[in-house]
C-alpha cells in the first residue's frame, strides 16, 4: 500500500502533502485541546514502533503479497494521535528501507492516516454511546481494524487508477490495481480480528489505553 517515488505525477505528490499537512494540523489542534497531551505520547510512540515493524510481516495472498498495516489499531488506540504516528512511521520506512518514498510521503500518509482518524473518531463515539460490553468492544475492534484497511486499499486504488500517466496502458494498470485491492480483503479480516483481540485485551487490563474509554 506504500506508493514509491517515481510513480505519481508531481501534482499528485504536492496534493498529497497538502492533504497530509491539513490532517496533521487537524490532529495537532485536537491533541492540544486534551487536558494533558503528554500523557498520550508514550502510547503513541510505542505504537509508532509497532506500525513501523508491522510492514515487515508479509501475508502472501496470490497474486500479490500484502503486509499488515495496523492503521485501524492505531486509530482505535490513539484517536487523533494516530495520524501523527503513521506519518512518523512512514517517514522512517521511506528513508531507511525505501518502502514508500519521500515524494509520496504525503500521499501515503493520507491514504493510511485518514482512515485511522475516521476509525478513531467512530470508535470514540461508539465507546461513548454504547454499552461497553465485551461483545460490543470486539465488534468495534473488528470493524475498526478492517474498515481502516478497506478504506486505505480503496484510497490506494483510486490514487493509482486516476493518476495513470498517459504512457501507461490504463486497462492493464486497472487490472493490476484491482487484483492488489482484492488481495487486501483477507488482510482486512486479519487486521479486524487482530484489532478486536487487542481491544478485548486492553479493555480487560487497562481500558484507559483505548481512545475515548476514559471514565
Amino acid at each position, binding site marked *: *500500500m*506504500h*506508493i*514509491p*517515488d*517515481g*510513480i505519481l505525477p508531481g501534482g499528485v505528490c504536492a496534493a498529497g502533502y497538502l492533504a497530509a499537512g491539513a490532517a496533521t494540523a487537524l490532529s495537532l489542534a485536537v491533541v492540544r485541546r486534551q487536558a494533558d497531551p*503528554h500523557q498520550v*505520547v*508514550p*502510547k503513541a*510512540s*510505542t505504537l*509508532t*514502533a509497532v506500525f*513501523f*515493524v508491522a*510492514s*515487515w*510481516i*508479509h501475508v502472501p495472498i496470490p497474486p*500479490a*503479497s500484502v*503486509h499488515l498495516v495496523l492503521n485501524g489499531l492505531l486509530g482505535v488506540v490513539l484517536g487523533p494521535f494516530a495520524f501523527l504516528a503513521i506519518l512518523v512511521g512512514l517517514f*522512517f520506512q521511506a528513508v*531507511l*528501507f*525505501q*518502502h514508500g518514498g519521500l515524494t509520496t510521503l504525503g500521499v501515503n500518509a493520507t491514504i493510511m492516516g485518514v482512515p485511522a482518524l475516521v476509525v478513531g473518531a467512530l470508535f470514540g463515539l461508539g465507546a461513548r454511546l454504547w454499552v461497553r460490553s465485551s461483545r460490543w468492544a470486539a465488534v468495534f475492534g473488528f470493524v475498526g481494524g478492517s474498515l481502516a484497511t478497506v478504506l486505505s486499499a480503496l484510497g*490506494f486504488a483510486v490514487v*493509482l487508477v486516476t493518476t495513470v*500517466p*498517459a*504512457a*501507461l*496502458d490504463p486497462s*492493464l*494498470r486497472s487490472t*493490476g*490495481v484491482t*487484483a*492488489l485491492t482484492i488481495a487486501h480483503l483477507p488482510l482486512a479480516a486479519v487486521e479486524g480480528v487482530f484489532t478486536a483481540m487487542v481491544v478485548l485485551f486492553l479493555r480487560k487490563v487497562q481500558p484507559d489505553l483505548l481512545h475515548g474509554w476514559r471514565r
Partner: protein
Amino acid sequence: MTLRGTTWVILAALAVLVPRVGLAHGADVAARVTRQVAVELAVVVEATYHSGRPMAGAQVTVLAPGAPDEPWLVGQCDAEGRFEFAPPVDRPGTWEVLVAHQGHGGRVSVEIAGEGEDAGSAVVTAEASSTAHLSVLQRVVMGACVVWGLIGTALFFSRRRG
C-alpha cells in the same frame, strides 16, 4: 519486568522476527547495457521486488532525452521481469526508463555519450534504489535503532514528574 529485562525481550523478539520476514514490497530496477557497438545499442532492464520475485508483466515507459512528457516507447516486462530496448545511438543524452507494477516500481537512467571517443557508448547512471542493497543484518540494526528510539521516547515521556 525491569527495564533491562524489557529491552532484552524486545531485542530478542526483533532478532527472531526480522530475518524471516524480509522486505518484499520494495522494488529494484536495474539496467545493463549489453552491446556497446557504435551502430547498435541494447539496454536490458531487470525489475525485481526486494524479495527477489521478478516484476513480471510490469509496465515499462522509455523516455527519450529532452522529451520527458512523451514516451518514446512503452512495453511490458516478460515473466522474468526483463525488458529490452534499443535506443538509437544518434540520440545522445539521458534516457529514462520507468517501471511500474501494481503501484510499485522505480526508474533508471541510461546515459548515451554524444561526442568524443565514447560517442555512442552508454552507461547506466542512476538506478532506482541504490541504497536498497542492504544486508539483513544492516536492516535489522537500522530497524532496531528506530524501534529503540521510539521506545526511548515513550520511556522519556512516561517518566515520573517531580
